[in-house]
């Protein structure tokens, strides 16, 4: 089932001369795991940010279940429809790992207990003691996994991850990708992962290549 569709999406940063993204058209379905690959600076993070509803395309449209997301309340979209794992995590540094997750869930209008949060964190390899530590005092890899747990916690239909395994060792990468695969195939989520890792990409049902602002598909 088609969940998300990009139609002729172009994006140009403020004050920049060239479009970062050029007339991108593609669609994403529920229950599938997508990988987006491309060289550094190709515009992968930009594309993911647009999908995450952090900004609107300069031209073109993004449809969620057939509705242009610029026409819906993007706060509600961000809070309830999509969970994002940012390349730079975007966690509240002064809050604890658990607090970051609980706040995110609260924003989407749901409740979550500390026990549930701890289970989630342990699934990505963060033990209880670190759950109550300020994010500031966690390593890069740990922060990345907190960000993953936060994105998953909301139970949103879409999960978008920007190089989520960039700071992880092979073992953790496998664990995380296993979770993503389960979310897509067992829970029916639409999972979009930007990655450089060949291992991570091997989990994908579909791989998209971003180059010079354009997109190419590779179906498996």
């Amino acid at each position: 089932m088609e969940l998300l569709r990009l139609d002729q999406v172009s994006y140009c940063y403020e004050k920049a001369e060239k479009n970062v993204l050029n007339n991108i058209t593609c669609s994403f379905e529920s229950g599938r795991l997508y990988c987006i690959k491309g060289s550094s600076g190709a515009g992968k993070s930009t594309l993911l940010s647009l999908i995450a509803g952090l900004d609107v395309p300069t031209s073109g449209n993004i449809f969620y279940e057939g509705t242009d997301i610029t026409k819906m309340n993007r706060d509600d979209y961000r809070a309830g429809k999509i969970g994002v794992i940012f390349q730079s995590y975007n966690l509240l540094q002064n809050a604890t790992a658990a607090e970051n997750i609980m706040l995110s869930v609260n924003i989407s209008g749901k409740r979550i207990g500390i026990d549930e949060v701890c289970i989630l964190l342990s699934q990505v390899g963060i033990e209880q003691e670190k759950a109550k530590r300020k994010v500031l005092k966690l390593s890069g890899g740990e922060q990345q996994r907190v960000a993953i747990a936060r994105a998953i916690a909301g139970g949103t239909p879409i999960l978008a991850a920007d190089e989520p395994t960039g700071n992880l060792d092979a073992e953790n990468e496998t664990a995380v990708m296993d979770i993503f695969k389960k979310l897509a195939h067992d829970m029916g989520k639409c999972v979009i992962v930007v990655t450089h890792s060949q291992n991570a990409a091997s989990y994908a049902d579909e791989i998209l290549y971003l180059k010079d602002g354009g997109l190419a598909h590779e179906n498996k």
Partner: protein
Amino acid sequence: MYILKNALKNLIRNKGRNAAILIIATLTLTVVTVSFSIQTLSSLAISHYKDSFGVQATLETNWEKIDKEHPPEQTVNEDGSITMEQNFGFIMPDAEEYANYADSQYVKQALYQASCAIYSDSLKQVDDNLQQGEEIIDLGDMTKDELMKFYMVSTDEELAEILGGREELEKVIDTKANSVGSLIGFTDLPLLNEFAAQQRKLEQGIFPQNLNECIVSNVFAEKNDLKPGDTISVSGPSKSLDKKEVTLTVVGIYGDYFNEATAATFGTSYGDIFTTYDTLMNTGFHYIDLTDAVFILKDADSVGAFEQELRAKGLNKYLSLVCSTEEYENNTKPLKNLSHIAEIFTILASTIGTAVLLFISFINVRERKYEIGVLRSMGMKKSNIAKGMICELLVMMLAAFAVSVLIGFVLVKPVASTLLDDPANVTISLPAISIAFSAGLAFALSIVSSSCAVLVVMRHEPMKILSERN
């Protein structure tokens, strides 16, 4: 609910930043609370002063108006010299009229001083001004013949005109010769300027308080062999009407330093006998002059209304109500200055406090911007973020406010009693209005200091905020 919870947690999460805000806000609010209290208390003291002392007002001849409506006539004499003549006169209100004027809601108290010449066969004269030299002439003691000689007139009509009417002439004709002095009645001692100026001082006994009590000068007492407890008998000035004598008890003797200084120019008045206003009025003597009348008004602002009332009661148009606000101004000046300084302090502290908090918020905005970006990326609504931030600062300002009120309670007493001259005038406590003002300022400060962050929330897309940081 989670917004409030998160806001409270944020307070603890960012201890460093918040401590600075808290200290500055507490300092600002404390200074403002105390200085605003001082301002309020000094205003209160001023109004207390108004209430307790009032303002002195007197009826004075409006010479300007008289000169305008009855300009002096110039006549050039044969020898070329110029004579100015202003033919105008009117009669000042008498005691009865004054009493009528004083019966007013604006008047707190009316003070009078009146006098009349007194006569006695049993008492010896102490002032002999007519014979002290050509310069010193006491017109009040002159007979009609002496006056005619003095003014160089030959008919009764001419003299009457000079004296201000037939009635005055009758008075002169009817006045006994050789008074032993003046009986001066007063309602209030401060009116007696020589006593206030310490030129006359009570040296034995007490001031007259009850009916038929009086004090005499040391010179008079010596000449007549009087001491406190003795009595004197005097009659009034009218040959035809004041035939009975009144007996007064001497209750005190005053030293006269006033006469020593002025004798050479004005003659002496050792024969001044002071009594109460009621005593003088009760004597039934004729030709009593009201020499001084002062209205003590309830406050300086009612002068205009009182004068209107006087006009309605038929006050002569050539008399105006003159308000001596000098004493009032002098006494309230330090309080007004204090109030003014306190006001400047209040304004300065509020402004500086606000500016510093604004500056801190401005510096904080980078840090908060990232936080805002993160919250926005998670889908938190702008309004909720703003609410959270205002909430945070409100809680802090509430704490600062509470502490400042506590400090204010402790500080206001010592500070106010040092600054206010006469703390007995007002009960010193933290005025409710200054607490309210401080609360208002606290609210304003929380809005001001959260405004920077709120502006960022409102203006930028999360993508921009986050990508700028990354």
